[in-house]
């Protein structure tokens, strides 16, 4: 056990994977000599050499396309998109190529590939450093989508993603890189050093994809969330004094429906919380599956608290960000019916 930031845990996962498997290669914009704008790959080029960790031209299409080719060759590329907001130029290579290669070639070619990207807001990054595009990926058959919320999970899930035989979208909540964040932006920042979830196992371990974890047991309402919003939900439940069960999904696809079902059948209420814009966000899919599987257990409508259907604004960051007060209001409203 060592206390680490999420950044250190991600770097450590790369290190362990590269040590264990020569096929693991790491590249992306500024990931080589400098070690990434968030330093998630710092030291890897020095340790493993320029041909296993290197800087790429500023072409997300090229980075993903090159990785698809390398994966088809037999390597296990782990690539970084500098911000999730910049993944769009690569969507064709992801959705039309990486995701469908195994299927369309009937397993003749495969695409074991991890695409990492810092995600979400809360850092005054404005419209193009704050987005949460997870819903796009969950709509594409052939992709797996993961979003950790702690250093321990980040390392274990990243190692599992690298070992996965299929392409994995690995979304890193950048607001959690250096410490948990419960949405109280006016309060002093808590570093991971001061938080138990900053404890990371040394060396190799992996955390199964497709398994959610219950962050807080509760009897009255189930909160489904992931990434930064898990901490917001925790703070809100405490402050609202509601006995909420909080599920950190960790993997959005494949989804751990069993854990969700068991909880909602127990509580009879379900609140979905995410930072992405509302319409056609992943919350819609969660609401639909809960409604499909737990309808007769529901005592109140399923509610979602999300980012608004606008671009992510700069000055109005905290009006956009779905913070504790909005979650608290939702909880109270749900407990009233």
């Amino acid at each position, binding site marked *: 056990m060592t206390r680490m930031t999420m950044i250190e845990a991600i770097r450590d996962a790369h290190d362990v994977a590269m040590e264990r498997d020569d096929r693991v*290669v790491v590249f992306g914009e500024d990931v080589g000599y400098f070690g990434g704008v968030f330093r998630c790959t710092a030291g890897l080029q020095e340790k493993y050499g320029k*041909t*296993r960790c290197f800087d*790429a*031209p500023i*072409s997300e*299409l*090229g980075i993903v*396309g*090159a*990785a*698809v*080719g*390398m994966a*088809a*060759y*037999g*390597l296990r590329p782990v690539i970084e998109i500098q911000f999730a907001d910049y993944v769009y*130029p690569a969507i*064709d*290579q992801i959705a*039309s*190529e990486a995701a469908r*290669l*195994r*299927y*369309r*070639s*009937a*397993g*003749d*070619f*495969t695409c074991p590939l991890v695409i990492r990207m810092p995600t979400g807001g809360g850092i005054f990054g404005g419209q193009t450093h704050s987005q949460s595009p997870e819903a796009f990926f969950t709509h594409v*058959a*052939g992709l*797996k989508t993961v979003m950790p919320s702690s250093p321990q999970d980040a390392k274990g899930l990243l190692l599992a993603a690298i070992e996965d*035989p*299929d392409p994995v979208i690995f979304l890193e909540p950048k607001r959690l890189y250096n410490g948990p964040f419960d949405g109280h932006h006016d309060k002093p920042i808590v570093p991971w050093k001061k938080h138990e979830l900053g404890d990371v196992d040394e060396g190799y371990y992996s955390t199964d994809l*497709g398994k959610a974890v219950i962050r807080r047991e509760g009897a009255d309402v189930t909160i489904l969330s992931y990434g930064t919003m898990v901490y917001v939900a925790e703070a809100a439940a405490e402050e609202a004094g509601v006995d909420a069960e909080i599920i950190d999904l960790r993997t959005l*696809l*494949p*989804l751990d*429906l069993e854990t969700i079902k068991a909880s909602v059948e127990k509580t009879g209420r379900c609140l979905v919380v995410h930072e992405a814009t509302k319409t056609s966000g992943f919350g819609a899919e969660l609401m639909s599956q809960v409604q499909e599987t737990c309808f007769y257990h529901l005592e109140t409508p399923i509610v979602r608290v999300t980012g608004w259907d606008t671009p992510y604004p700069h000055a109005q960051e905290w009006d956009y960000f779905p913070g504790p007060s909005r979650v608290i209001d939702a909880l109270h409203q749900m407990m009233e019916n």
Partner: protein
Amino acid sequence: MTTIRPLSLNVPEPECRPGDEPDFSDFVIPKAGEVARPPIDADPNDITDMAFSIIRVLNANDEAVGPWADTLNNDELIEGLRHMITLRTFDARMMTAQRQGKTSFYIQHLGEEAIGCAFRVALRDGDMNFPTYRQAGLLIAGGYPMIEMMNQIYSNSQDPLHGRQLPIMYSSKEHGFFSISGNLGTQFMQSVGWAMGSAISGDTKIATGWIGDGSTAESDFHAAMVFASTYKPPVVLNIVNNQWAISTFQGIARGGVGTFAARGHGFGIPSVRVDGNDYLAVHAVAKWASERARAGHGPTLIEHVTYRAGGHSSSDDPSAYRAKEESAAWPLGDPIERLKKHLIGLGIWSEEIHAKEQQAILDQVIAVQKEAEAIGTLGAGKMPSPRDMFEGVYETMPPHLVRQRQEAGY
């Protein structure tokens, strides 16, 4: 000071539309043998002129001349002719099968057979091609069983791709043929990535990327050129300029530059043009470029100058947008005719042998076709199971797909 007149938009038009006289007089064709053959480690800057000429081996009398000649012996040449005849025969039968409703779609190679057939012979087993839908010559010349191709085209129960893919979107790792994507251009960048993988691994294998003239406008073309220029992986990047996209002539993609090969100059990549209807020339250039790649001299860009003599696909009728006579007027002739005449000139072939050979190949293709149709054609006979539709999306089927498969009743 400029006087200011209203501006206007330049929209390029082909020389010839339906009703016009085909006119290729602006199309400069250098004599066979004219272009020098530089060493494989030549400095790209010393050979820029090659992007504006055309490497040709067979001259007007179908003799092999010049520095690019003599890369193949007589047996290999005869084998090459057989490959091209086989591909053309295969295409003709499959086009008819499509018209008969035995499958949904087909794309033929008419007039472009030399390119894939000759290129494949210059490669080694283990090398990987990232083809377009119009490079089945790479499979035919690579010895891929014709029955597999037909089963794929018919989407029957023996289709190696389990009926999942549109006809002719073949895939064969064993035969160095990367799964074809319906999205133009994507494979071009992937070929560079595959070659980077080979270089990173200290391997000796090379990759080839393929793209059409129209598709060079796609973003993947640029990404491939940038990555190839920077990392110098062992890849041969091929542009097949068959003069047309669908109804759009190559001038819309090419714009204000003389040739597609010239695109390579902006990247310091050796760029050459070759007579795509000259089997010997294509092979010689393919050999040169793949030797460069294998020797660690990095990427080469090749523009294959050819003409799409048929429709774009079984869904296309070219007479709607280009003169019927254009194909016949195409100055580089027909690849099979030219190689045939060359072999006759060498005294190792004759019209009789040719006719016999054609018949033999036709019989062979028909036999295989019978075999394939006995298994099934699209929607008739033995078909891939619907259950299979749910397989292979992931290595192991996730719960939600298992549920959906069960809901579907499989």
